């Protein structure tokens, strides 16, 4: 990899998947790229005025409007006949929840914009509150486990399906643990004459609580258990999936993380573990992950 377009010195936590994800995305996109970001960890850790880690033009406006801001950039690039990549990089809170209206508008208008969601499955910047992306049974500060609670009572929102419902021509899931796959998907998405959406599994050390040295291993386990299938949709059809040779039990992925530890402490949670395993099995069957 040449010199990264995200400079060192940013304030992200050691063991955070977000800067690694950005570096991989920028490495694939190259310097002829404009990045739009919503408010979040990315913004506060990479742009503390008067410093900036961004070596490409970068703009942040608000938490929920990155897609609308990018739409304004996109029409100007088109008007100026410039062949510059336009990439939104944002977390799951802005992508799945508060920015949904703007996202829907941008997808529907068909602007040439790649939307990359680094998905760490909760509002991490504000202190690990539940988002629409938080999986079933996850302990967050607003869905805590307790004597009457096993954590988040609802499954994760299916954001790729929402993008597909807008007829977004390129939709993919990716993982920080599979850099070749992620780079390939970014390059492919940037060739699309229209919107594209890539959702990247990006573990958060603070919110998930794991050993900093195991971030990549954890992200890889999400894929190997079937809980995070790596998929690719082109023009609405599933065109590729990353096969798993021997699916690992979901519990192997869960037990490494503090956000699931209540499931292993209480006997009454064994049913929950079974339900999460069933979700992994359903993914394996749906995407035919095992040959």
């Amino acid at each position, binding site marked *: 990899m040449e010199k990264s377009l995200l400079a060192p010195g940013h304030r992200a936590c050691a063991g955070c998947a977000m800067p690694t994800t950005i570096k991989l995305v920028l490495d694939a996109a190259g310097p002829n790229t*404009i990045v739009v970001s919503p408010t979040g960890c990315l913004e506060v850790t990479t742009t503390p005025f008067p410093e*900036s880690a961004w070596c490409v033009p970068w703009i*942040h406006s*608000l938490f929920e409007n990155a897609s609308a801001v990018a*739409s304004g950039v996109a029409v100007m690039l088109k008007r*100026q006949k410039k062949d510059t990549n336009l990439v939104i990089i944002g977390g799951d809170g802005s992508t799945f929840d508060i920015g949904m209206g*703007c996202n829907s508008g941008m997808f529907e208008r068909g602007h040439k914009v790649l939307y990359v969601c680094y998905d760490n499955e909760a509002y991490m910047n504000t202190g690990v509150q539940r988002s629409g992306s938080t999986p079933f049974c996850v302990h967050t500060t607003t869905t805590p486990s307790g004597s009457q609670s096993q954590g988040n009572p609802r499954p994760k929102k299916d954001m790729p399906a929402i993008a597909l419902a807008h007829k977004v021509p390129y939709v993919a899931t990716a993982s920080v643990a599979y850099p070749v796959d992620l780079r390939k998907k970014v390059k492919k998405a940037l060739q699309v004459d229209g919107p594209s959406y890539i959702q990247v599994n990006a573990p958060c050390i603070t919110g998930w609580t794991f050993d900093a040295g195991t971030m990549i291993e954890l992200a890889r386990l999400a894929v190997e258990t079937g809980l995070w299938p790596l998929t690719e949709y082109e023009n609405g059809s599933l065109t590729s999936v990353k096969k798993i040779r021997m699916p690992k039990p979901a519990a192997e992925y869960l037990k490494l993380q503090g956000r699931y530890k209540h499931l292993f402490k209480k006997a009454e949670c064994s049913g929950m573990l079974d339900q999460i395993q069933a979700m992994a099995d359903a993914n394996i069957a749906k995407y035919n992950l095992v040959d």
Partner: protein
Amino acid sequence: MSENTANMKVVEGSYAVAHAVMRCRPDVISAYPITPQTHIVENLSQMVADGELDSEFLTVDSEFSALSVLVGASAMGARSYSSTTSQGLALMNEVLYNVSGMRLPVVMNVANRAMGAPLNIWNDQQDSIGARDVGWLQIYVEDVQEAVDATLQAYKIAENPAIRMPVMVCMDGFVLTHVYEPVHLLDQELCDQFLPPFRPADVLDPAYPKTFGAFADPSTYTEFRYQQFDAQLKSLDLIEKVAREFEQTFGRYYGGLLDGYYLDDAEVVLVTLGSVVGTIKDAIDAMRAEGKKVGLLKVRSYRPFPVQALRKALKNAAVIAVLEKDVAIGGEAGLVTDLKAAFYNSSIRIPIIGFTGGLGGRDITVKGIRKIVDRADAARKGIESEFEFLDLRTEIL
């Protein structure tokens, strides 16, 4: 040089404003429909559809998105335009602060309308007065011609490199957006001469990567706010200068910050904003014929608030009555509160009373204005009531 009078046409206010916007050659227009703004953006859409106007027109999912689109466009160097009103302006509120904070010179016509609840689509000025602290300049206009001319002036003020602040041109909804009046439509050649292309130094460009919208901690945030504050105060001179330059090119002048009517010898002075100026002038004509020394001060620039100009213009009045179409529930109202504050530390001691009227589209009549003048006259001997609702229907309370 003055414009050809043969160019005067009877058109709807919304068309006239859309035509002025077209003459400003915006690169990007983004808007969401809301009554009574719709005719402005419908006309602009048609101009784009007919090839008369070379702009990118984005139809979006909300007013919030409409203004957010312009954040991106403006940061790319686009001359950017939107229009909204009332609930739409309220929905934009978060973005309004952002546009001024990022020093993006967006121009927007606000077709002033009441705020719900209860839902009401008719005119008052609660919407933009409620947004007085968002950092945008606010110019209030009296008639369609002034709305047209102020829209062109707004870009010249907003895009000045020393100012770089967004501007709202506030025109009363329906009263001005839907009225047909004879108007001098703007000539393209003169507009191009008056308003040079927008060429900002800082844009999103991979050749010169820059970071827009960084995060500022307590060690720098105050200075960002100060610079916005300072830019607004600096724009006081520029608003006047641009009004004079406009006069030189187009032959029309409205006063830059303020405009007076029978002000020189007036004892009772009414102070107001917007289209009610026309009715007040009629009332003053009648009262002057009766020998009453009544005058009017129209506030064109509400943000920045022209404190020195107001002190100078009003210092000889015996009593001041402010009439405005907004109310600060729990306090009084925007203009009267600001005006009192403007005088407090000066040597001027004039009784000031305030009235809110015309809320939710209720007519302000000549009779109502005479009542205000009578109240003001009485206040010279001592204020009985500092703030009142004009023509309150006590029988239905």
